[in-house]
């Protein structure tokens, strides 16, 4: 379980970082989104990953807090998702404005020879 999650986070973050370093604005936006997914999953993972243990409260049996996932990271993830979603939307608007003003989708606003 942990290995699968770690691999998924790594793959998302790796491809996101690669896209982030690309010269086209759209690639940068997609890269930022991928990295933010990776980060959201990472926060989630900080709240303890475990499988096969349902958090039931049974009458007469003492409650075992180790069976419950930590709710705080989940609240943090929600906030982080909303914020990164809004910021991506804002970046998209700036991207379109830059494309319209400079006539190119290069991040520097002009084509380089390289």
């Amino acid at each position, binding site marked *: 379980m942990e290995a699968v999650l770690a691999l998924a986070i790594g793959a998302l973050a790796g491809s996101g970082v690669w896209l982030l370093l690309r010269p086209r604005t759209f690639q940068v936006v997609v890269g930022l989104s991928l*990295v933010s997914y990776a980060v959201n999953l*990472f926060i989630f993972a900080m709240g303890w990953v475990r499988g096969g243990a349902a958090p039931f409260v049974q009458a007469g049996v003492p409650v075992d807090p180790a069976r419950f996932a930590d709710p705080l990271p989940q609240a943090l993830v929600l906030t982080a998702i909303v914020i*990164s979603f809004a910021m991506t939307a804002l970046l998209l608007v*700036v991207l379109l404005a830059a494309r319209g003003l400079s006539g190119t989708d290069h991040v520097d606003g002009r084509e380089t020879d390289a």
Partner: protein
Amino acid sequence: MSWAAHLPLAPILLPLAVGALLLLFDERQHKLKATISLASALYLGAAALALLEGADAAAARVYTLGGWPAPFGIVLVVDRLAALMLVLTAALGLAAIAFSTARWQRAGPRFHALAQFQLAGLNGAFLTGDLFNLFVFFELLLAASYGLALHGAGTARVRASLHYIAVNLTASLLFLVGASLLYGVAGTLNMADLAARLPALPASDRGLAEAGAAILGVALLVKAAMWPLGFWLPPTYAAASAPAAALFAILSKVGVYAVLRLWLLLFGAGGFGGELLVSGGMATLAFGIIGVLASQELSRLAGFALVVSSGTLLAAIGVGDAAVTGAALYYLAVSTLGVGAFFLLVELVERSREPGADVLAVSAAYLALDDGEGPEEEVGVAIPATMALLGLSFVCCALLLAGLPPLPGFVAKFALLAALLEPEPVPGAAWALLVLLSLSGLAALIATGRAGVRIFWPAQPRSVPRVRLLEMLPVAALLGACLALTVAAGPALRYLQDTAQALHSPRAYVESVLPPR
């Protein structure tokens, strides 16, 4: 609870509410919007001064939201450092908003609402006692700053903002990784609780906690523009409109503030990462010096002056000595006000000049003087003896940046150097910092002198810029505040030394937030 007990909440709630209110009005109601915005900034100033007045060196004032005690509830903490930053924010906010009412508010929509949101984010970041809320307020102030950086539009602003937004979004993601790592290890996000729990961590978790703190530190240092993380700063600030740039003067100080607070709280002076702060700060200082000398436009020069002040602060904080930190806090106040005034002044001085008059080729692309200023419309009183006043203010700014007497830039640098050279024997890093600090003063003097000669003693007669009283007043007020800091240098330095002492012994902070049970 009485109303006065809720005062720490006001610097966050009021600008948020006012900003939302300002969105409701039509763009044509400039006067009404400006009045509301100015009134809000004035009230913020009064609230910040009241908080500063009440801030005690021994214990921090803690406001529990909804009455839930820390570490379970969210707290706002007002100590002397937070109150000082609030006052600086209010001063710059007031100056920028007053400046914008003469002209810049009409360069694009919703300037005042964005400025209010920016103030709310700044105040929140200074007041919060909680790592995740620090992130939320960072995002709030950054979101508003993206809008402000774009205010007035134009190719140069959009291009610079694209980089600015991408860099800061990435830094925010790093912030989240760092904060969640710390949470995963220590099980809390409350700063005071973290400070209490980190020393008790088992050795096996220690590395993970330090990795989290390091990632968090990278995110904060991007905002503080430490070399090599700060290349985004000069182009963005040079392209931004003058009042927005003046507000941004405190933006990079948020990073410095967070580093100062978290580093001393979590690891203590001389702890993890101190040497890195010193060397990184000195590299930033060197980069800023080269940049100051190389800039041909005044607005870029102002941006690099900000880099220089960030570098100075980071290096001084990294030394980890309470006396040095106290002097650094004085320097922080002076340089923030001085650079803010300089950003405003640059726009006034450059206004009458041919775009690109002093630009040698390469940097013409960044010049955006003729953007976004609609048809001229006289507001307020045009002042006489404009050039003389502008020249005088320019000299004041130059003296402030270069750190020459009689302005407080000198007092700040002198206090810093005196504190650096106090320990016996003087460490090598202190000597290096001394050399760099002196060089930075020299570089600022050369650069501002060169620009001043070109602007105020031109070969051909030039048109005098039309400057209104409302635009000159904020510059004069900021410089006046600096002058007041010189006159009251003794009490101010003593106050800030006490503040630094409190920061270096965070036990009082921790016990104020988490009362011993």
